[in-house]
């Protein structure tokens, strides 16, 4: 019986394991140096905030693994011998594989700032980071925290600290929040929202140095503007990189991540890589060569399981989508909305008068083909948007059927009429919004 070994028990590795078990009787072992059981790291913030206990973040009850004959092993793999197909653990112990999946995830970026290894300075990615953050903010008095890096993990950290009434200063390198991803107007909404929650948001500000107290713990930071700011906690959230230090300088081809082809194969026989740590030599059209997103890891897991079980399948994610939450504003995106309009693109933007809700549509100027949507504060139906993208719907069709796309709870105020009215004025169209139709929504299933 073949032995599939998976290093990493995150969403990628676990999805691969589950699907391999569904498709075959191979022996499966998942190795992790982080936790005994798979947990959802997207939920770490809620554990800190007291919304859940850590156990609640585990999607499967503990009996699940044995019931599905998936072995779990705790340990840190130090070395991989690709010729004899043997993994060596730190300490002692070895394990042989027939197929190996590297799903080792990411680590927080550290760009060589002086003082970046001081006590009280940390990123947020792993369970260990969560425990450390709890310790850093409860066993030491933190009168101010500084977060470096204006992206998703940064804003989550800000919300966490805010829940403990710890004042936060937020250093953002760009001139707007999540500047690489969000267009100006949306970034503006988020910026104002964070400020309304009392976050001291500082654009065009980078970290220069972290200053230590007499015990090796942070006591202040110096920003790129030269200002020294007293603080007792520093969050380094300037992005993540593949966690592959133990694989560098080996026969495995790596660059920033583990290089894989469209079949998620590495350059070593029977060795695959998926999730945050995989780098596509030829990225899927429009996407990055590194995909550090929850659902892409899941899709890679589903895909590599097919290949390992004899059905060679290329990684082919469909239309881009994503979601996030910035304090109390939910964000969803479908299709492509770049931070700056690309050539041939035009857009339509609507914002609610209270400034905490907006929809930003991007479409092709010539053909009017709908290309993408950013929505803040209004929930949108994934299936409907996906179908529009599949069918190359025009923006006009999307607008006409906008009520189908709403996914807000009952009794919520709906804005489709207002949105399409504004669209008609700007675009000189006469689109009349159709009533929601379950037939259209559910029909083509």
């Amino acid at each position, binding site marked *: 019986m073949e032995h599939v070994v998976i290093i990493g028990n995150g969403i990628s590795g676990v999805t691969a394991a589950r699907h391999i078990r569904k498709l075959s009787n191979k022996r499966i072992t998942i190795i992790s140096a982080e936790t005994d059981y798979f947990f959802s790291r997207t*939920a770490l913030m809620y554990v800190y905030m007291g919304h859940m206990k850590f156990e609640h973040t585990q999607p499967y009850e503990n009996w699940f693994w044995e019931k599905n004959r998936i072995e779990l092993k705790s340990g840190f793999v130090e070395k991989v011998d690709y010729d004899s197909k043997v993994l060596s653990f730190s300490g002692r112990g070895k394990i042989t594989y027939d197929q190996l999946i590297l799903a080792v995830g990411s680590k927080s970026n550290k760009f060589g700032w002086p003082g970046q290894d001081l006590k009280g300075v940390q990123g947020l990615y792993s369970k260990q980071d969560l425990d450390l953050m709890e310790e850093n903010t409860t066993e030491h008095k933190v009168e101010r925290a500084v977060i470096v890096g204006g992206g998703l993990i940064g804003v989550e950290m800000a919300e966490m600290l805010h829940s403990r009434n710890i004042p936060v200063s937020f250093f953002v390198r760009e001139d707007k929040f999540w500047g690489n991803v969000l267009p100006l107007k949306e970034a503006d909404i988020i910026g104002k929202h964070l400020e309304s929650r009392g976050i001291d948001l500082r654009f065009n500000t980078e970290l220069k140095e972290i200053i230590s107290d007499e015990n090796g713990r942070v006591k202040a930071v110096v920003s790129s503007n030269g200002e020294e700011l007293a603080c007792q906690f520093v969050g380094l959230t300037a992005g993540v990189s593949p966690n592959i230090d133990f694989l560098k300088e080996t026969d495995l081809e790596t660059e920033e991540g583990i290089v894989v082809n469209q079949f998620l194969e590495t350059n070593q026989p029977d060795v695959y890589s998926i999730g945050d740590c995989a780098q596509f030599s030829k990225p899927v059209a429009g996407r990055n060569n590194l995909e550090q997103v929850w659902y892409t890891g899941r899709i890679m897991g589903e895909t590599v399981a097919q290949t390992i079980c004899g059905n060679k399948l290329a990684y*082919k994610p*469909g239309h881009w989508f994503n979601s996030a939450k910035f304090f*109390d504003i939910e964000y969803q995106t479908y299709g492509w909305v770049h931070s700056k309009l690309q050539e041939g693109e035009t857009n339509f933007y609507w914002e609610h008068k209270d400034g905490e809700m907006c929809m930003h549509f991007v479409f092709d100027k010539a053909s009017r083909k709908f290309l993408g949507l950013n929505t803040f504060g209004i929930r949108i139906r994934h299936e409907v948007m996906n179908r529009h993208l599949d069918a190359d719907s025009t923006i006009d069709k999307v607008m006409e059927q906008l009520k189908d796309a709403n996914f807000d709870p*009952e*009794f919520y105020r709906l804005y489709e009429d207002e949105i399409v009215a504004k669209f008609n004025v700007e675009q000189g169209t006469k689109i009349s919004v159709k009533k929601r139709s*379950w037939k259209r929504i559910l029909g083509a299933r």
Partner: protein
Amino acid sequence: MKNIRNIGLVVFLIGFAVFIASLFVGTYKISEDKLKSLYDTTEKIDKGDTIAASIKKAAIELELLDKEFSNQFAFSSEISNLLNNSNASISESFAEKDGITAIEVEAIYDLAIVNGKVAYSKDVVIAVFSDNVKKQKLLIDNTSWMFNESKSYDKVDDFKKDFENKLKGINGKLGEKYFVWDNKYSRFDLVKAASNGPITDNKGLFLFLTFGLCIIGALMYILPGAILMGGPGIKNNGVYHDAATSRGWIGILAFVFLLFFYILLYFYPWLIVNWTSIVDPFKGLFIEGASASQWFLYGTLYTVSMCVMGIRMFIKYRHNRYQIVRTTSVLFFQIIFAFLLVEILPLFDLPAMDLKNAWPLDYDMFFDWNVNSHFDSGTVGIFMFVWGIVLSVIVIPVMVYFYGKRWYCSWVCGCGGLAETLGDPYRQLSDKRLITWKIERWMIYSVFLFAIIMTIFAGYHSYNEVNYPEMSSKDVLFGMSAYNIREWYGFLIGSIFAGVIGTGFYPILGNRAWCRFGCPLAAYMGIVQRFKSKFRITTNGGQCISCGNCSTYCEQGIDVRAYAQKGQNIVRSSCVGCGVCSAVCPRGVLNLENAPNTNGSRMEAPEVILGNEGLKEFLNK
């Protein structure tokens, strides 16, 4: 803001302390006036005393009349003797005319014991009571088991023992329609009538010091949340850090209080008469000078708790219109239907019916006293009874088809209303394990079966009461008495499960233990919801990030995440549609909807979660 909160907490605790302390204040003394106010003073029983006079006599004999007791425990322990003595003396006044006298017993023994052998038979009875058919029937009905074929006596002493025991029973029941039975209702009446002291003299003041302070304190604690919790949005910060909401010491104290409260309310109401006196002024708004029962106290506490905690819901979920409308709905139904109408209807000589309470949750609907009460109240009374049937048989399944059982469980039901307001801080305590789901299904369908069987018995009994009043053993079917089954159901399910465990265990088991494990109406509606309904919780394609908030906050212990991460809609018989999973989801993955079941879309798990185009293409080939 924080100071207002802290002061509010202190004010609440003071009010609460006064409430508890009020049970231990005051004295108890039963006087002739009080007895006359409670019991009949006109009809002379068989040319003897009135009921009131009989009890007064017994009180004097026991040296109880006008004796002052310092607490209700001491006073109430005397009631059993008082009432039994009074009842016995009433029996005695009927003994000569209707009972079996000593002389008559001798006559029976003469004929029944022949040559040292027992020859007791129906003929013996007829011979002795040749001129008194009533006494003949009485003895035959009660002792026929002693002379039928299967019973034979070897020893005369055994026969005499059985016979004398039976006689005690027969003679002891003479005049029982005039008895004041020793049960919790009489005890309550007597203890309340006997209560004196600061509470009874200052009811209005204590109503303010207890209810008033508690409400004010609670609102002072709750209202600043609008500002302290930050902007509108889901805020469960600290739920698992707080000793009140995570089975910590505060939660346990709350649990102990609730447990005591329910046990006293259901089983020892005479010990809490001071609490009912406190709400007398409020009851007096409906009927001047009326005395509140423990059920009025309960209804008042229930409604007030719902309103105060409902305000907390409005603040906590002010960004979520579904929650606001839903909370308004449960408050409306509780205040109007469960509380006000129940107080107002009897003022029009109509039964005090909670018109939204449906069988089988309303388990005494087909009990004889309830049926009679409706049929005796004219056309409107009958209409109300028919409404009850229409509600259960037509309205409920139709509404569940269109909206799911949420229309009742989270929008109308009183149990649900308390759960969603007072119980909101505890919803996360429900057990999510698979094994618990299995236990849940066994339990709830067992209770449903019990309710159906019990209702068949009760209905049979009521039918006989209405149509064959002269029939003997109207309550007996297949050798079992409807009274017994009704009593067991009322005790085990109505009181212990629904009351003590259902609400008492909020801080330990979560806010829906009754709804999830016991409610027979939930079982009934759940079957409709699972198999024939438009309701579902739609999951939004591939957006789920498995964070687990939905499962954690599901009050019914449904592992919502398990469905969401597969892209499968949630269609579960236990889902009460509270909407909180949708509210706490940080990615907008869940939405409560009523939609057609096109191509099995309502329940099926998609073969491929939306997003994996490659796998979808492969599987479609």
